[in-house]
């Protein structure tokens, strides 16, 4: 059976894998990118499209900042912008307690180079006349924005291929192991891929592969509950989010330039990695539309034309697995982004390429090390 070799083997063609392949090529490393379906078809292709930094886990901001810089250069890097727009991101709150949380976050984020503007009740309505009566304040992140998830990852994939990466789609890896100095991955049809470096960027399927190296992780698949309206006059420029501790109140929405309003939030739906399917639960959509009209009452008479979901992966502490393996040299991970990986994607690709190329990265990623789940095994 045919055998392929390269400096690095990237398994999983989502936004992490596709951008890592692209940035590895930029560093002159030969790359094989393997995807079980088509590039950008799962979590990377079905998410909300948020290019948002505010509200993130603070230690993740350096990575998010690095990624944000890449989003702004997509046209230059890839020859297309994946509809990235720097529209700003506004996070509303409904009560004093959450206003306190917004204020604390804005103060803390400043240390990470993220400047946020707190907007009071009246100013909020001057700036964003579409907002309903309930929000009492908002936190505005002017440099954040949104992009089209259906386009971004395939664009990275094509750019990687143009730069010389070997892409294998519809290729399912059934086993991966280190044989001597090299990793050897074997596809369902028997093709073999060899490389001294392996990067696992397989999203919800990442755990199956990390387990083969003795590093099992408690990863679960869940599906975002997304919806989009018919096209409407373009009036809502910023991406909208809500700062709340009540799950039902979580809603995020953005209007694209052609007029459709995309939204999601609230409870997640069931997702099945084995059949590559995730579903939208109708009661979740009904709960969302309530929050949509609460935030933007003028949308009450608009109509939802489509809902969708996809297979995302979640970890118990709600942060990803990213960095080198704790057990196997030459092995790296970047998966399990818990529904907030889209904005980070290009940055993750860049950081992983740097890590693989240089053995270290200037961006702190220690909190995401796989060891936090496998340390107990080591002690044993």
């Amino acid at each position, binding site marked *: 059976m045919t055998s392929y070799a390269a400096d690095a083997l990237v398994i999983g063609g989502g936004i992490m894998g596709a951008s890592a392949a692209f940035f590895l090529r930029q560093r002159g490393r030969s790359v094989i990118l393997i995807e079980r379906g*088509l590039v950008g*078809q799962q979590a990377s*292709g079905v998410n909300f499209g948020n290019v948002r930094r505010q509200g993130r886990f603070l230690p993740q901001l350096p990575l998010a900042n690095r990624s944000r810089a890449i989003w702004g250069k997509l046209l230059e890097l890839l020859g297309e912008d994946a509809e990235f727009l720097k529209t700003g991101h506004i996070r509303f709150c409904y009560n004093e307690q959450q206003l306190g949380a917004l204020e604390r976050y804005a103060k803390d984020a400043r240390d990470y180079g993220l400047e946020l503007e707190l907007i009071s009740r009246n100013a909020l309505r001057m700036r964003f006349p579409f907002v309903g009566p309930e929000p009492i304040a908002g936190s505005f992140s002017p440099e954040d924005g949104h992009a089209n998830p*259906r*386009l971004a990852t*395939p664009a990275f994939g*094509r750019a990687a291929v143009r730069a010389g990466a070997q892409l294998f789609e519809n290729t399912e890896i059934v086993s991966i192991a280190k044989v001597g100095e090299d990793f050897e991955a074997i596809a369902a049809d028997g093709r073999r891929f060899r490389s001294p470096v392996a990067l696992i960027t397989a999203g919800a399927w990442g755990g199956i592969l990390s387990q083969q190296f003795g590093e099992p992780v408690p990863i679960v698949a869940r599906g975002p509950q997304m919806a989009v*309206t*018919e096209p409407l006059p373009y009036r809502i420029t910023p991406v909208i989010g809500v700062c709340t501790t009540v799950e039902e109140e979580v809603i995020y929405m953005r209007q694209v330039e052609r007029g459709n309003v995309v939204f999601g939030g609230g409870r997640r739906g069931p997702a099945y990695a084995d059949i590559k399917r995730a579903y*939208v*639960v*109708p*009661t979740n*959509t*009904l709960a969302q*539309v*309530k929050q*949509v*009209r609460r935030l933007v009452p003028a*949308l*009450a*008479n*608009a*109509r*939802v*034309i*489509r*809902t*969708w979901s996809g297979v995302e992966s979640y970890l118990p502490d709600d942060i990803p697995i990213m960095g080198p393996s704790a057990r196997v040299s030459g092995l790296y991970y970047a998966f399990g982004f818990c529904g907030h990986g889209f904005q980070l994607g290009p940055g993750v690709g860049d950081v992983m390429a740097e890590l693989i190329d240089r053995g270290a990265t200037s961006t702190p990623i220690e909190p995401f090390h796989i060891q936090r789940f496998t340390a107990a095994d080591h002690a044993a």
Partner: protein
Amino acid sequence: MAEPRVIPQVIVVGAGPAGVRAAEALVQAGLRPVVIDEGRRDGGQIYRRQPEGFKRPYAALYGSEAARAKALHDSFEALRGRIDYRAETLAWSLWENELHVASGDRVEALRFDALIVASGATDRLMPTQGWHRAGVYSLGAAQIALKAQATAIGRRVVFLGTGPLLYLVAAQYHKAGATVAAVLDSSPLSLRLKALPKLLARPEVLVKGLGLVARLRLAGIPLRTGVTPVEIAGVRVDGVAGVTDRDRGGDLHTIDCDAVGMGYHLRPETQLADLARCEFRFDAETRQWLPAIDEDGRSSIEGVYLAGDGARLLGADGAEAAGHLAALALLSDAGHGGLEAEMARLRLTLLQMDRFRRGLAAAFPWPAEAARALPDEAVVCRCETITAGTLRQGVAELGACELNRSKALTRVGMGRCQGRYCGHAAAEVVAAAAGLPLEAVGRLRGQAPVKPLIIAADSADTEAAA
């Protein structure tokens, strides 16, 4: 007589011929089904009832089908009070054993043990350059305008496409006093002759069809077969101005008109079957994916039955029989006995109708080759203004050779109709460009809502609680 084991909660979706006959059989067995229908009144599309206050008699509205229309309406009237009838209600999604319905901005989840989906069919459309212009309607829409509101789509109308509905609607327009400028059929006459043995399965329907054609000819209306539609000409402001076609000899003809009614037979409305996760199979004869059903209408999902044109295009009579049979299958599955003889009779009826259906499919084929010939600038997806060229570019430059991938990368099928009207043609364009058999490009997966759902949607309980 075997006693029924359980009294299942049954929901019938659709109050056309299949839905009404299904509900009737359930009521006769002592059940009280919920009947959900999008229409203001029962009858479905074929036996659509005019709004209250309109006084046209049955003969004027339904012609040769007046007796059947009246019989169905009367049957439905007799069911009122014995069913839970929800008019103007959309079944917008389905989850486990709950059907989610919306009426205006009021939503509700209705539990069911068994579901009969009799969702009917809509026009199957093959784009022609210029079909996005104002004044172009589907044949079904042209007929609804006439039936529901006694309105024509234009003063001088060209009917374009293929299939029995093409001739029926043209004859109805002529009778109503509109000028039918021409009837242009993409199917050659030779296929009709070849399909004759199968069409003879229902001689009375065949005779009615021939009668329609004869009446149009007698009226001096130009009827041409085997044509290739070339363009629907017009300008942005005024809409349609004329239709150009190429005849079998290769000559171009242009006919002036102010409206076009077009359609290439029908396609089942299958979104609910899709949301119920029913298995679909590719039907090579008609080049489309259909939900898999057994001879009685059982889908691949237990408790979900599919009947009428929403499953197989057997026409109104076939839908009545299929709706009846699906209900009996449901009752039989629920433990009711003594139904076998009636079921056997209905199966025989459906077998004969299916032979006729295959005859129609052979006589009036879907013009797949027209998709290959579509100019790059022709719009395929009207909701999103996606052209054939964009789809081909998607194949060539983005590798979008599967229909859902093409949707993700080009936006085809992403608009208000969710690909119901462009999906078949888009699949043909993609398959031709990719050099793949049609079944290899797949089908657009159905996603809720079945039709647009208003953001104001709220359940009665929430309002009571508020």
